[in-house]
Structure formats: C-alpha cells, structure tokens
C-alpha cells in the first residue's frame, strides 16, 4: 500500500540537544515563563511593558493619525449619503429637545429651591482632560485602548474615561505620556450600576462581546428593555451618575448595550475623580509626586515638567476649554454633559 506523503517535511532525527532544537525549546520555555509572570502580575513585567509603551507612543500616535483621518473621511461620506434623512431626524429630535429643555429648566428651579431649603452642600466640581485614542488592543484577552494622556497630564490608575456618548472604561495603566484604558466590555471590567427609574442596583460585567452582562440583580427587580443604566458610584472609584447604556435582552438574560461605540473610539475624556479607593489600585511610589490627596495639577513634577499649558491643564467641569490635548477640535461640552448627569 502506497504511503501518502505529508505536506510537512520528514522530521530529522536530531537530538533535542542540537543547537536549533535547544534554542526553540528555550524560546518556548521563555514564552511560558512570561505568561506565568504576566498572570501573577509581576512588577518587572508591568514596568517593562509601561516603559516600551511610553517609548512607542509617538510612533503609534503618528501611525494612527492617517487611520483616524480616514475614519473621519469615511464617516463624513456616510453622513453625506444619508443627509436628507438625517436632517429630518434631527428636526424631529430638536422639537423633542425643546420640550425637554423647558422641563429641565423647570426641574432645575425646583431642585435649586429644595436644595436651599435643605441647606444641601454643593458637590465638588469634577475636572477632566481630553485626549485621543492612539492604539487598540487586539486579541482574546483584552478590550483596551491606549490614549495619549499620561501621568504628565495628571492621569492616574483608576480614573473614569468617558466620551460624548457615555462611560467608556477606566484607566488601568498610566505611563508618563500614555495610559491604557480598560473598556467596559473587557472580561475584567466590573462596574456597579443603577438601572432604570427605580435605581435597581446591579453589576455590569464585560465578557469581551459588544454588550455587558447584568449580574447580581435582586430577585423580582422590574427592568424593561430601554431602561437607562448609569454608574452607582458604590465602588468608590467611579463617580455616580455617569451614563453607561441601556438595558437590552429579555428577563433572565438582561444585558446592557453601551451608549459609547467601544469598537471605534476616537476622542475621550479622563475624569479626575480621586477617592481613597484608588489607593488599592495605584500605590504611590513617590509620596510627593503621587499623593492621593493631591489635586491633578499638583501631580505635575515641578522640576522636570513644564508649567501647565492649555493643552495639559485639567479643566473644571462647567468652564470653557480652549484646547485639550490632541482633541482641540472636539467640544468639551460632551464630556461636561456626561459628568454632570
């Protein structure tokens, strides 16, 4: 009987001690060791990665610029194609918003009156800074994005990241000039949320898909598709009231469809929301430079870094922004609107 030939070369009968085989074996072993070190979160691995990402940031920023421009051009072409329909939709939406504006002003007056009666303390202003996404994470492990804002801009681990549509994620690594944002739909993302007008508490968990799972819903909780989902702030890391998405799915398998289009992020804002809970995720290496009680402006290294400029100075919510990072062409009111909800 004739033997069928394999497409692979017949393996030479070489000892595993042959230089080539030994080298291959060593490389495979090295990969396995690196995987284990990554799994246990060894500091050396994290430091080396941050260092390389910082070094490659300018290159990534330059490489992503034409791609982002191309995406904008494509989006523009698409908007031209459906221009008439879009105008009709916007007119209808504008009519609805005028009614909402009137109601909002009425409610605003009522709230101010009630607050004055209760002598309520005003909430502190939330500062933010805006930058752009320069790299995406690809693979089965992470849904993350690299942004061009780092510790030099006052960004630290644990800060909430939003865009014009809603919450995007939070920072998990912060280098000198870049930070990595863990997106909402990442496998490791867990966000305590409030759902619907009743404010049902739940946990929105990512599973690497486009939608988030709703875990730990109380028994008998009445949810409906389309209900708004927003952060509860009970983790002490994220501010309360950031828009996350809307409920989708059916009873027993409710999901959250994020407002933000997580697969095509462009311009994002980082909220400077310091809480004691961040101490567990961002231990200060230098007590002066990374003091948790310090305001973002104080985090700038006084000797090495230049004085804050319009490009890197955090901007308090409610104040006009002249220019923010690489996102000078985007209205800061998007972020303000999100943060104030």
């Amino acid at each position, binding site marked *: 009987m004739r033997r069928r030939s394999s497409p692979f070369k017949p393996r030479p009968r070489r000892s595993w001690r042959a230089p080539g085989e030994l080298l291959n074996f060593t490389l495979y072993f090295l990969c396995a060791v690196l*995987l284990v070190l990554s799994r246990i979160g060894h500091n050396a691995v994290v430091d080396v990665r941050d260092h390389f990402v910082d070094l490659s940031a300018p290159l990534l920023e330059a490489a*992503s610029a034409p*791609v982002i421009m191309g995406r904008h051009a494509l989006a523009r072409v698409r908007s031209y194609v459906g221009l008439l329909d879009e105008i009709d939709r916007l007119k209808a939406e504008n009519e609805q918003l005028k009614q909402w504006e009137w109601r909002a002003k009425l409610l605003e007056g009522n709230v101010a009156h009630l607050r004055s009666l209760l002598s309520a303390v005003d909430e502190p202003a939330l500062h933010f800074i805006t930058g752009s996404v320069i790299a995406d994470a*690809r*693979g089965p492990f992470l849904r993350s994005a690299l942004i061009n804002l780092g510790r030099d801009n006052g960004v630290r681990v644990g800060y909430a990241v939003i865009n014009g549509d809603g919450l995007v994620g939070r920072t998990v690594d912060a280098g000198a000039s870049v930070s990595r944002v863990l997106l909402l*739909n990442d496998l490791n993302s867990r966000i305590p949320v409030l759902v619907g007008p009743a404010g049902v508490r739940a946990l929105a968990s990512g599973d690497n898909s486009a939608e988030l799972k709703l875990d730990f819903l109380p028994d008998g909780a009445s949810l409906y598709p389309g209900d708004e989902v927003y952060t509860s702030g009970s983790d002490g890391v994220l501010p309360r009231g950031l828009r996350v998405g809307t409920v989708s799915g059916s009873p027993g398998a409710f999901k959250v469809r994020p407002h933000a289009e997580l697969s095509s992020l462009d311009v994002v804002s980082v909220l400077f929301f310091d809480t004691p809970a961040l101490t567990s995720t961002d231990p200060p290496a230098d007590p002066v430079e990374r003091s948790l009680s310090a305001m973002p402006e104080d985090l700038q290294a006084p000797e090495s870094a230049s004085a804050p400029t319009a490009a890197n100075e955090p901007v308090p919510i409610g104040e006009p922004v002249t220019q923010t990072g690489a996102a000078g062409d985007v209205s800061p009111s998007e972020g303000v609107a999100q943060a104030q909800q």
Partner: protein
Amino acid sequence: MNAILPALSVLFAVFATAVPWGLPADATFILPLVVVMMVFCWRVLPGADLSPIAAMLLGLLTDVMSGGPLGFWALMALIGATAGGRAPKLIDGQDMNRLWLVWGAVACGVAGLGWLIASLYFLRWIDWWPIAFGALASIALFPVVLHGLLWIRRGRLKPGLRMLYGRWT
C-alpha cells in the same frame, strides 16, 4: 537590506495591528493573526531569513502593543515560525494550494491553542467565536498576504505569480 526585510515588514504589520481601525469586537483576533501568518510565510519563502528569535521578539512587541499578557503572541509567532520552518519551501512551479492547506492547519492549531491558553489564563471559558472567525479570515487572506510578501521581496508581482502558479503558466 534583504536580510532585515522580513523582520521589517512584520514590524510594520505589528504597528498596523495596534492602530485603531475601528473594527467590530468580533474581528479583533484577525490582525495579530496576520502577523503570525506573515512569520509563517517568510519562513516558507526560500532565501528569506526570519529566525525564531526575531519571530518571538516581534510577537512580544505585539503583546506589548495589545496590552495582553506578555508571551501570548510571542508563543503564537514562535509556533508560526516553527511550522513555517518545517513546511515545504515555496519553490518555482509548486502548487500554492498545498501550502494554503498547511496554513489552514496551522491557523486552526494556533486558534485552538490560543483559546485554550486564554481560557486557562482567566480560569473561564473564553468566547470562541472571535477566535474562530479570526482563524477563518486568516485562512481566506493567506493568498493575499503571500502575494504581498512576494511583492515586497521581489519588488514586483509577476515573478511571484510565476512562483505560485508556475504549473499552469
């Protein structure tokens, strides 16, 4: 220049994988797998020199860029380099379909192993669909990438076509 051309082209691809293309969540496995495919292709092209060490370092760079665990794409690239080194070299007049079949097997192996490692890493079953979709897409893209690399190597496509389809030309 010829000696570093393979590594340079893969390096370019590594940076291209990190750029925010705006692909949907299900398509996130395709781009890094293209890097592994390029490593495999360079290893089957006669005369091209891409050592396993270079392949591993490029995979490591993919890990750094993607933010995933260090060693994952390095391991995948190393598997691609090993498989490419053991696969038949692409010589003049050889049928490309055979090589395509080999890449199909390698892509399935890499995808299966990747899914297993990812599941072990997180101690839960990872969604397999994006990985399977990436593997299928990489198999479909194989001739395109191979043609591209031949064009890079020769500077023009015609001799590359003769190499791939010499049997019929």
